[in-house]
């Protein structure tokens, strides 16, 4: 098992190296050159010169690359051209928000997706099955931002059940020691703040979780359909086991293996969706910050955020691989 983990960790090295080269080259290929890119459009000649010497942009390329990597390892990505604050500080502010949103979206997608996929498979050909199949087709065809609009219009604007935007009512007097607002409310003994944060999370989480939901339903259904035809399920039936033992121990434990992989992939992809969802709901997280960086050509922010998100993405997938090894004994031995 340890060997397995180490080997997976070693695979990270070339990926992270390639990623850093890619972003290093990217910043230098931007129109106007790196200094201009880092400073934004209104940069004066002096400030460009100052940045060039500060970042050693006149050094040989390998020196520049080395500086870039050693800075990146210390999470030093320079300052945001828009807010003029260190990129790392902006990350510390925005990542907890998006993490909270992503967790909520995954809870929604997994909590509904696995049971729905399971029952669709067990009731193969029924209305529930047809509904979940067509729903999962539709789910991947609806753009995240359009779904977000619909939810916002129906449930916030028309029905008024949920707030239209933000993470918390600004009038709410709440402290945020962790940046995870739901958790913060509980820690600081302010359950009302937690509840308010949850209400703000519902619609964005549904919008963001829709695609993972569609994918999870489909994979679970297909996987359960495969597994119920396996010989070992027939063996379990032949033993006269109770239906729920067969479901839990023999069907689900096998059927969920591919689902775990898919959940890992989807968890990484949530960042893409978050850019759009957070924009619609003015949800102050990574996605919205990136979207604003785009329209302001805030390249220092883009560079730093992309690098960190990609690193998170590969690490999440590594964790999924490792946990896969934990549930599937056949992988563990290899």
């Amino acid at each position, binding site marked *: 098992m340890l060997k397995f983990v180490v080997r997976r960790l070693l695979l990270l090295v*070339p*990926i992270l190296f*390639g*990623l850093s080269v*890619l972003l290093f080259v*990217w910043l230098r*290929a*931007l*129109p106007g050159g790196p200094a201009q890119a880092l400073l934004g459009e209104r940069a004066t000649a002096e400030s460009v010169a100052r940045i060039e010497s500060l970042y050693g942009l006149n050094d040989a390329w390998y020196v520049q690359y080395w500086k870039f990597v050693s800075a990146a390892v210390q999470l030093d990505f320079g300052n945001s051209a828009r807010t003029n604050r260190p990129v790392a500080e902006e990350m510390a502010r925005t990542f907890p928000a998006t993490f909270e949103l992503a967790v909520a979206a995954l809870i929604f997608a997994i909590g509904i997706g696995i049971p729905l996929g399971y029952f669709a498979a067990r009731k*193969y050909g029924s209305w529930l099955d047809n509904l979940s199949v067509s729903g999962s*087709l*539709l789910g*991947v*065809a*609806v*753009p*995240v*931002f*359009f779904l977000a*609009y*619909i939810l*916002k*219009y129906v449930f916030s*604007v028309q029905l008024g059940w949920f707030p239209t935007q933000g993470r918390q009512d600004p009038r709410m007097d709440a402290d945020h020691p962790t940046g995870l607002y739901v958790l913060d409310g509980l820690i600081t003994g302010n359950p009302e703040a937690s509840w308010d944060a949850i209400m703000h999370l519902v619609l964005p989480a549904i919008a963001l979780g829709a695609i993972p939901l569609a994918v999870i339903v489909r994979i679970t259904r*297909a996987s359960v*359909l495969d597994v119920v*035809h396996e010989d070992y399920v027939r063996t379990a039936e032949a033993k006269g086991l109770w239906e729920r033992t067969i479901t839990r121990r023999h069907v689900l434990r096998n059927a969920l293996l591919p689902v775990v992989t898919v959940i890992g992939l989807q968890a*990484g*992809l949530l*960042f*893409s*969706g978050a*850019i*759009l969802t957070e*924009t*619609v709901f003015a949800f102050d997280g990574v996605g919205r910050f*990136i*979207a604003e960086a*785009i*329209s302001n*050509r805030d*390249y220092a922010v*883009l560079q730093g955020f*992309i690098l960190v*998100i*990609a690193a998170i*993405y*590969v690490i999440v997938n590594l964790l999924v691989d490792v946990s896969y090894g934990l549930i599937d004994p056949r992988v563990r031995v290899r």
Partner: protein
Amino acid sequence: MSLSEIEATESEQVEQPAGNLRKEAWKRLRRDPVALVGFGLIAFFVLVAVFAPLIAPYAPDAQPGRGIITPTNIPGPSAEHWFGLDASGRDEFSRVVYGARQSLLVGVVATLVGMAGGLLLGVLAGAFGGKVDAVVMRIVDVMLSIPGLLMAIAIAALLGASLWSVMIAIAIINIPVFARLLRGQMLSQRGSDYVLAAVSVGVRRRPIVFGHILPNSISPVIVQATLTLATAIIEAAGLSFLGLGSADPRVPEWGRMLADTQRYLASAPHLAFFPGIAIVIAALGFTMLGERLREAIDPKYRR
């Protein structure tokens, strides 16, 4: 035993040569209502795009409602303006119709370019193996380590806002998908009986790759291309939603039309509804056809 005996007739099809299988798949597809609906949606989408000037009553940048529009009064659907007017007094229906052109163009070009790039890398990796394979696959790994939309954003930022940069960005993020697919196909087929047979009678590498392996990999590539068309259309809309589409705001793009309505969601929801539905129709058509195509071609997905 029991069930496999009964299903034997079905699994035997796997052993059939590709031509037969394809005919069989085609037959199955023509009777599949989901595939037919998907095909119908695609046909509708393509026809609207091609004949946009004939269908749309106004030019996309004409402002027939210029005088009546105020920020608080954006008329919805009426007999004269089927989808209502937008915030600049333009005919929403005409803009949605013209938007199909951008969407189709971006989708098709991005998919074709991405497919071509991916096939090239995949063939290189699969045919040469060894070091070439290792290098190509590491590149693919790196590309896949950045979530698609983020990668597209980075590329589009590099190239500046234009329709072309959207196409190129989406093409690039689809390269690794096709590269992996084709490499996988080639690796699995390299060990297959018919390739071994060809090798054993002394056929050289190039004829094997181009004469045997590639033709047999075409079906999954077509399936992937169909599904990619759907995601490309959605991704293009996403980029244009974020302001990375055409630099000219008068060009009707569904994604940007949605972004522009952000402020008027409460007063003029129709402005979000119609372009949104248009994206769904286009993407759903390709998704439905692609999924069913995959099931028809690969018995493993059938159920």
